[in-house]
């Protein structure tokens, strides 16, 4: 009788385990909610990170590539062409080619159509990583907060939570995250408006944008940032930027980098307009 009870208990436990696993699988890649007492395996992302731009070279001197998000294929000069490996919808490449971006092979000096330069609208994701500035992760049990110097902006990456059914469109989207293994934070974001650019080249997106960031700590002083774009409104298939290596830095927020329309206009008046005026 006792053996039967033990066997029945084991069967019930096994059934519950199978049901739980099936539920997890049905929810996709994001783990389900983790109970308060469960230990969360995480990667320590503390510190300051970022690639900090490069010096302006003298004539003929070599120039290091900036910390910019480029294209799956080709070099910077191929960005925005069929050689760049991005599966643009026809309207998306037409819109890209109509822009006056601050970066890429067609970088313009003045009268940029960049919504960040024109209006100081937030960079959004993943463009926020295009800035040659620093960022910091603040990790808690319920969320990872990412603080960015550029734009003086922050995001919340909710752990142990699913996406909202219908998030309101916003500049930085709605982000959930989870840890994979002992070295990676995965950030999954939806709920974007369509006002931002994906990068400084000017690649557009729609409100269907879904961004997956895989932030892997490869050593004490290096992160790898792999970004996948999933937006069937603008692109016919998922595509990924080349993995970026991000260096450990220091002195977070010693100088933040706010965006000011007034300062942009002042710079336009003092530098851009005189520099682009017809030669006398």
């Amino acid at each position, binding site marked *: 009788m006792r053996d039967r009870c033990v066997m029945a208990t084991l069967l019930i436990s096994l059934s519950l385990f199978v049901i739980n696993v099936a539920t997890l699988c049905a929810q996709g890649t994001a783990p389900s909610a983790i109970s308060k007492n469960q230990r969360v395996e995480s990667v320590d992302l503390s510190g300051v990170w970022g690639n*900090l*731009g*490069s*010096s*302006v*070279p*003298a*004539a*003929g001197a*070599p*120039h*290091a*590539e*900036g910390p*910019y998000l480029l294209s799956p294929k080709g*070099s*910077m*000069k191929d960005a925005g062409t069929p050689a760049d490996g991005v599966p643009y919808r026809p309207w998306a490449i037409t819109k890209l080619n109509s822009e006056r971006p*601050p*970066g*890429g*092979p067609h*970088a*313009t*000096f*003045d009268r*940029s159509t960049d919504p960040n*330069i024109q209006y100081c609208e937030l960079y959004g994701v993943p463009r926020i990583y*295009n*800035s*040659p*500035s620093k960022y910091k992760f603040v990790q808690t049990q319920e969320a990872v907060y990412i603080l960015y*110097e*550029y734009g003086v902006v922050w995001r919340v990456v909710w752990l142990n939570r699913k996406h909202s059914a219908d998030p309101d469109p916003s500049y930085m989207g709605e982000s959930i995250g989870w840890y994979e293994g002992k070295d990676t934070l995965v950030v999954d974001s939806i709920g974007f408006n369509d006002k931002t650019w994906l990068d*400084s080249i000017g690649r557009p997106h729609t409100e269907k944008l879904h961004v997956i960031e895989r932030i892997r700590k490869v050593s004490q002083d290096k992160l790898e940032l792999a970004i996948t774009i999933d937006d069937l409104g603008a692109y016919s298939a998922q595509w990924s930027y080349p993995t970026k290596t991000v260096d450990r830095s220091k*002195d977070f927020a*010693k*100088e*933040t*980098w*706010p*965006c*000011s329309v007034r*300062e*942009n206009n*002042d*710079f336009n008046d*003092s*530098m*851009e307009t*005189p*520099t*682009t*005026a*017809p*030669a*006398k």
Partner: protein
Amino acid sequence: MRFGIFAAFALAGALLLGSSRLSAHHGTSGYDMDKDTVLKGTITQFDWTNPHGEIHFDAADANGAVQGWIVECGPPSRLVETGWTRHSLASGDHVTLYFHAAKNGSPRGILVKVALESGQVLENRA
């Protein structure tokens, strides 16, 4: 044939180099990045500001006529990485500026580096 291959590599290199000259805020197509300009000048104003700092200075041309210039440098958050502070330059300082001047001949440019009277050299970071 060998010249053709060399020319192709040179063109590819030029395209790559030219295209990689980027700024967080704007391109550099307004400046002659293939030519360095060096001027000794007197600082008249230093704007420690975003999106780019601005160095205003007076410099004499070959005929001795004094002209007011403005060259841009990086924003404060980048300049601090190479030792700049908002007090690095002050009105009246005598400095030597290395920069790329505007293509259209206007007295504007983008800084490469500035040598102070003390001998300290501050590099631009954009």
